């Protein structure tokens, strides 16, 4: 489903060149629930932005659902994001001007879906997260947990093959976090592939597989419990 | 002021906003300077005195029907006699035109005979007013030298057939132009003619009928001739007794129609108080001044609003940064002066470009329209006004910025 080989990402400024990811390899199979962990600055967010086609990478290969994405232009990448990927952000990132219904509608609009089908899907997704009754509310009128559930509904509405979550419970208290986590597990059981970045070991433990990133490289705890100490350096120019 | 370097560095990162504000200030300065200048040009002669005593003065335009040429002499004399006998009328006269009316005679005036082919330019351009011995008292002109016409000096002439070798009264401005030594009384003046008129009187001031720029260089050069012009068209000036103006405005045309109904006094502008004459003569000047004034006011308001809008946006964008500065020990005053200085720098850039634009725009207007060169004082005033406007506009958002609490630094989003 998601396969990166020898992938690298370099940030250049006038003065230095920083490797955020270096010789990065990962392979997530269809239907897997993978937790990505790692310390601050290890590159896990960079990995997620590249995986979600939010950013381009510098070298290597990335196959998403069998498609080599490095050659795609902005339009094609937008289309893939819209059709195949669902995002769940730590800060929810709902659009404050739009009510719950309209927020969930955004990706469907870009897909050019007919009004009736849109409505059906939105209501289904909201039903799923238990917020159908709040469709007319604005994000500011909801609790953090509810906002994140709306964000999940928005991600689900388009029936994406791949769900990318960035610290989905980071801004929530324990109880709300548990609810969100249960929801993710349920979605996974129904067949979606989920990649979740977190630094909460308890959460990570609930995934099928854990991938650990340190200094821009993968340490797959479940498959290769070795520590590539020799590469664990930030390279400079 | 030690903050200038970091401010410049910050501005470099907001090029678009900086350029937009500076550009707006520049364009506003250019337009406001020129608009103010047009206002001054248009209003400066609004208050120019005509030399007449303008209160209690009525102007009537009259056209005889079925009579022309010599036949109009007796008709007009009957009119004038009737007018002068009317209770409420102090005096009345007939004249070919009057100040601010907009049409009349103009020709060259000289101290030497004019040659037949007009090769030499005359010393002065002047207007001719054809009238009688009642003109001075009716118009309320102030005689500063010499005497008025005597009744026996006044005669009727054919407008296409007369010689100007007669006694004349001139305005002080023309007298001084012709005889700079100040001794014009009794001297000759040649009115595009080989035969001289003799100056017998000087009035303090008497404006020409035109208000346009083309007449600006002889605006007060006038000659009164003791001639009444034959023909079917003429103007009566009527001086009413104090307090009788409103009544006379109706009584005078009624009296004239009663005297002889074979005449036309136009419905529009046929009977006008001199206040109306003045208002109509300067209508477009006043209107243009008002228009430019409104444009300036709205323009300054919009520019100020634009500065408020963009600065507010910047403040919003930099809340965290401001919080960090506050956390690091910046006082409220430091933050306030940061934004004021930033605006001053942008404003300075804007007014430099704007001053150049203002002058360029004026030069273009000068070359295409009857317009004078822009005085630099206007640019200077405009520059100061816009800088102050900028500081005023930025004050509210800057105050808001200065109230950002230091704790903002710790907020994540």
């Amino acid at each position, binding site marked *: 489903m998601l396969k990166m080989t020898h992938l690298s990402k370099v940030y250049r400024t006038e003065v230095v060149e920083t490797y955020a990811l270096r010789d990065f390899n990962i392979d997530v199979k269809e239907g897997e629930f993978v937790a990505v962990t790692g310390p601050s600055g290890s590159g896990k*967010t960079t990995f997620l932005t590249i995986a979600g*086609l*939010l*950013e381009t990478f510098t070298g290597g290969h990335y196959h998403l659902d069998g498609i080599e994405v490095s050659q795609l232009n*902005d*339009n094609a990448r*937008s*289309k893939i*994001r*819209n059709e195949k990927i669902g*995002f769940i*952000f730590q800060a929810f*990132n709902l*659009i404050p*001007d739009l009510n719950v219904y309209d927020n969930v509608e955004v*990706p469907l*609009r*870009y897909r050019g879906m007919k009004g009736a089908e849109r409505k059906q899907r939105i209501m289904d997704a909201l039903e799923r997260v238990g917020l159908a009754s709040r469709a007319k509310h604005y994000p500011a009128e909801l609790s953090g947990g509810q906002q994140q559930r709306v964000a999940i509904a928005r991600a689900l509405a388009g029936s994406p093959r791949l769900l990318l979550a*960035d610290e989905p419970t980071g801004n929530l208290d324990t109880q709300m976090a548990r609810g969100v986590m249960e929801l993710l597990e349920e979605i996974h059981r129904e067949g979606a592939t989920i990649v979740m970045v977190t630094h909460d070991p308890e959460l990570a433990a609930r995934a099928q597989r854990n991938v650990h990133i340190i200094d821009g490289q993968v340490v797959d705890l479940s498959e290769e419990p070795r520590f590539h100490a020799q590469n664990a350096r930030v390279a400079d120019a | 002021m030690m903050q200038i370097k970091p401010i410049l560095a910050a501005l470099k990162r907001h090029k*678009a*906003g900086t350029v*937009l504000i500076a*550009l*707006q200030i520049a*364009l506003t300065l*250019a*337009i406001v300077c020129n*608009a103010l200048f047009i206002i001054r040009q248009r209003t400066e002669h609004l208050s120019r005195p005509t030399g007449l005593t303008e209160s209690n003065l009525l102007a009537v335009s009259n*056209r*005889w*029907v*079925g009579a022309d040429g010599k036949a109009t002499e007796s008709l007009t004399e009957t009119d004038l006699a009737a007018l002068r006998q009317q209770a409420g009328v102090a005096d009345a006269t007939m004249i070919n035109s009057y100040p601010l009316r907009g049409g009349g005679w103009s020709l060259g005036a000289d101290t030497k005979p004019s040659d037949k*082919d*007009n090769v030499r330019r005359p010393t002065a351009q002047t207007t001719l007013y054809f009238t009688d011995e009642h003109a001075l008292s009716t118009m309320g002109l102030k005689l500063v030298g010499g005497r008025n016409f005597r009744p026996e000096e006044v005669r009727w002439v*054919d407008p*296409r*057939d007369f010689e100007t070798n007669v006694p004349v009264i001139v305005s002080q401005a023309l007298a001084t132009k012709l005889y700079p030594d100040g001794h014009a009384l009794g001297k000759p003046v040649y009115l*595009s003619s080989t035969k001289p008129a003799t100056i017998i009187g000087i009035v303090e001031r008497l404006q020409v009928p035109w208000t346009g720029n083309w007449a600006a260089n002889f605006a007060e050069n006038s000659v009164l001739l003791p001639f009444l012009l034959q023909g079917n*068209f003429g103007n009566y000036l009527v001086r009413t007794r104090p307090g009788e103006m409103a009544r006379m405005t109706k009584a005078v045309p009624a009296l004239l129609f009663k005297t002889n*109904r*074979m005449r*036309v006094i136009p419905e529009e502008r046929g009977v006008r108080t001199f206040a109306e004459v003045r208002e109509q003569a300067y209508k*477009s000047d006043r*209107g*243009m001044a*008002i*228009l430019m004034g409104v*444009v300036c006011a*709205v*323009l300054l308001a*919009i520019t100020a*609003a*634009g500065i408020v*809008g*963009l600065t507010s*946006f910047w403040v*919003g964008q930099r809340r965290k940064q401001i919080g960090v500065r506050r956390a690091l020990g910046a006082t409220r005053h430091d933050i306030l002066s940061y934004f004021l200085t930033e605006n001053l720098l942008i404003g300075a850039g804007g007014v430099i470009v704007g001053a150049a634009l203002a002058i360029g725009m004026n030069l273009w207007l000068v070359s295409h*329209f009857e317009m004078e060169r822009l005085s630099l004082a206007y640019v200077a005033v405009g520059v100061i006004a816009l800088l102050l406007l900028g500081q005023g506009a930025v004050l509210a958002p800057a105050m808001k910025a200065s109230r950002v609490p230091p704790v903002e630094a710790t907020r*994540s*989003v």
Partner: protein
Amino acid sequence: MFAYYFQLGLRSLRRNPLLTALMVMAIGFGVAASMITYSVFRATANNPIPQKSDQLYAVQIANWKPQDLEGELRPALTYTDAMAFIRAHKARRQTALYPIAPSVIPADAHRLPITADSYAWYGDAFAMFDIPFLYGGAWSQAQDDAHASVAVIGRELNDKLFNGIDSVGKTINLDGHDYRITGVIDDWDPQPLYFDPVNTGGFGDPIDLFIPFTRAIDLQMPTAGNNNCNTDPGNGWDNWLRSECIWIEYWAELPTTADADAYKRYLTGYAAEQQRAGRFKWAPNVALRDVTDWLDFNKVVPPESKISLLVSLGFLLICLVNTIGLLLAKFMRRAPEIGVRRALGASRREVYMQFLIEAATVGLAGGVLGLVLTGLGMLSVGWVFDEQIARLATLDVSLVTLTVVVAVAATVMAAFYPTWRAAQVQPAWQLKSN
């Protein structure tokens, strides 16, 4: 998608009411100022006879020595030259004309005489200037030649004197002389008054009365317009006719450029002949100007109109610069939203669409405000301009359309840069900002 974006745009208008109000006001004021002054300019720069403006030519000839001309041919002719051109009859149609001011004496002795705006010209003029008739028609060339006492009157005068009935064949008394009416003109009000901008300044009330030029000369009717002399004409009417004083305008209808070229050759030949005869002591200097050229030459568009149009356009420009800044602020404030939309699959194109349409809705609101202000401004046009010009400035359908189109187009143009900036927002912005 358009409807969706339009809806979003409307919603966004409500979101930062202050910022939105500022922009709408800036656009509204800018557009209104431009439209008001444009309406005046449009009226003054109007082509009053578009179907024939390139076939009608005003004739000029230098009958004064070069220093008296002050660099430019004068816009009027002497009686001598005008009559020579009439006699030569080199154009398809032609007329000499000058304004007169006769008084109309009503048949009813209880009614007061009135002055009608009048011209003395030739019968050809009616067909030349495409003047429509309600009743009857022009007088004939034979009547011109016979110095006949005939007249054509305007509809308004016909209403006043004859209560609007067909008055052809009836008589009208002008200054004590009777004239037989040959025709009544239907509504005819060309503005500018191109056939005589010299004496009207270009604008004035419709002309009500016409009589034959030849008859007016017989009756020694002086011009009610300008008369310019470079030398003393001497005394009396006949001396004036023979003098070098200029007071007549002359028009020739020349359907093709070949006709115009031929006519110009004729004029040059005439001037050369006058030079040989000793009347002109200078080389031939003649001009033929068509209607637009003639109006231009006579500076019919008042400087007020041009200056205020220019100032207004500058005003609009500043308003747009202002709008660019405010739109930039408005759009960039929504960078998070743009990031989310990009992450959820919006392409750059869609971001462009959304924000340009949003700008268009701002422009539309500005246009509506502009329309209201333009309407109010129309009421006060009379403050700045002569009433004869002010009455021509009207808020018609085309101006309403133009107001809205200019407001929307200008705002969308102003939105290009802010929108480009908005489309540059990276979808990854969301994650990185945490």
